[in-house]
């Protein structure tokens, strides 16, 4: 049985800063449960010796040399920002300590 509860969905929505209605909580609980159950089903098929995989293609050590490449100009960097001032991105004050 799935461990996805309505409270967990609300918690996840909170973490993701998404406002959800009660109907949506119910809907997402069902949908996420289905996904979690499917994953649980796959888990049964593998044993403890199977290494976990975080990348679909088995490759490692893809590096970049430590060489400076051109950056954007300040104007380019800020061009997509909703608001800016003094060469910086302007954002709402957020009530948290630095």
């Amino acid at each position, binding site marked *: 049985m799935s461990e996805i509860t309505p409270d967990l969905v609300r918690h996840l929505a909170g*973490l993701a800063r998404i406002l959800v209605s009660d109907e949506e909580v119910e809907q997402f609980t069902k949908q996420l449960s289905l996904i979690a159950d499917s994953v649980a089903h796959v888990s049964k098929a593998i044993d403890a010796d199977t290494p976990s995989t*975080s990348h679909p293609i088995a490759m490692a050590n*893809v590096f970049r040399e430590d060489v400076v490449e051109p950056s954007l100009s300040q104007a380019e960097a800020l061009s997509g920002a909703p608001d800016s001032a003094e*060469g*910086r*991105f*302007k954002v709402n*004050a957020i009530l948290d300590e630095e």
Partner: protein
Amino acid sequence: MAKAELMNYEQALEQFEVVIGLEVHVELNTNTKMFCGCKNEFGNEPNTNVCPICIALPGALPAVNKTAVESSIKIGLALGCEIAPTGRFARKNYFYPDLAKNFQTSQYDEPIAFEGSLDVEVPSGKVHTVLIERAHMEEDAGKLTHIGGSTGRIQGAEYSLVDYNRAGVPLVEIVTKPVYGAGAEAPELAAAYVRSIREIVKGLGVSDARMERGNVRCDANVSLRKHGAEKLGTRTETKNVNSLRSIERAVRYEIQRQAHILANGGTIIQETRHWHEDKGATSAGRPKSDADDYRYFPEPDLVPVQPSRELIEALRATLPEKPADRRKRLAGEWGFSELEFRDVVNADLLDQIEETVTAGAKPQAARKWWMGELARIANESEEGAVPNITPAQVAELAKLIEDGKINDRLAREVLGYVLAGEGSPAEIVAARGLEVVSDDGALIAAIEAALASQPDVIPAIREGRMQAAGQVIGAVMKAMAGSADAARVRELLIEMANK
């Protein structure tokens, strides 16, 4: 912010055992950022070292900086850590505009280095072994400036401005295991540990290691438990402690604050606290709660890092002398007393004195200037900053004295001009004509003038009472505004008495 009630420090230690844990972030001095080719440079115009990767434009793909990985391995090796044969990056998800991606690329379950240890000497001379839990790679965040409100801090701010030049700069976070048994020395041990880390990364050449620029930053965890108790107490994590002195003070403060609460039947809230250097106190930040639910998961845009044994051994071969070994060597070479040497270490002047000696000064002369006049000037300056003088200049100053070109008093005058930016000591002595007068003609004239009002001196010297010479030397010095060569004046007086 009201200052919390504190228990007397000795009393707190009688009642409780102190356990500390330290997280140190080291900013690497690579040419470029961790995941993109933007310059890793301090002090540039805002948002000029940014690109689609570090400001998180859609579709941008990160690529790992090879040098940053090698620097991280070096740090791990220098801390006696195992290097993971395979490690991966993870996303640490949170919403805060210091990173544009809404996550920090970090390492979680597979750090690059783990299980190390570091021997740290505290001011008393005792050596504590601090066990290292892990060292992992991650990226720094951008810089926020809060605008509006009275204090410039976030409370009451109307909006914030973000500069992403620092976003994506490579960091290595070094985390200790809980440190037990430091007792009353826990604050000193915390500071000495960070000092050792700083020496190591500086010695490795992987970081500029300047705390005032945030190249090395420390979060200090402190918890208390009753002596003999097995369970660890609830800890607080004090952030924003950015000087060695602050670390020491912040740990001490937390011990006293927590002891007062616990002794009065209260409980410690697990929370982030902020150190305020000006007030000498910590204040509560946010409690550890949902906000710390970072939903780590493997970074799908990056592949694992799997350093070969050959690479690890090649990097191990490049490691410099360990700080503890270096200290032993320097203590032997310099011939300072144990106390003199420890004072130098605690004043954080090992590097300056070593460089001054390398530049040609005698060790005791180098020590005298850095620990004396220059330390006094640093203490009197507002920021307690290192004076604006290079070790080479101090060595030059010491050499001028050694060669008898200037005396101590003139040297202090020259020092003032060096600090004011007038040039090197030798240049200043030449430009300002500050060399001591050892020209016998001028000295003899001044001595004769002094003897005219002190006729008893010559007979006294003839009788072997050399202390009488002091009056004349003083008068000559005064007459020549301190620029007389005192040793020569003394010689001339003796010659005159023996005629």
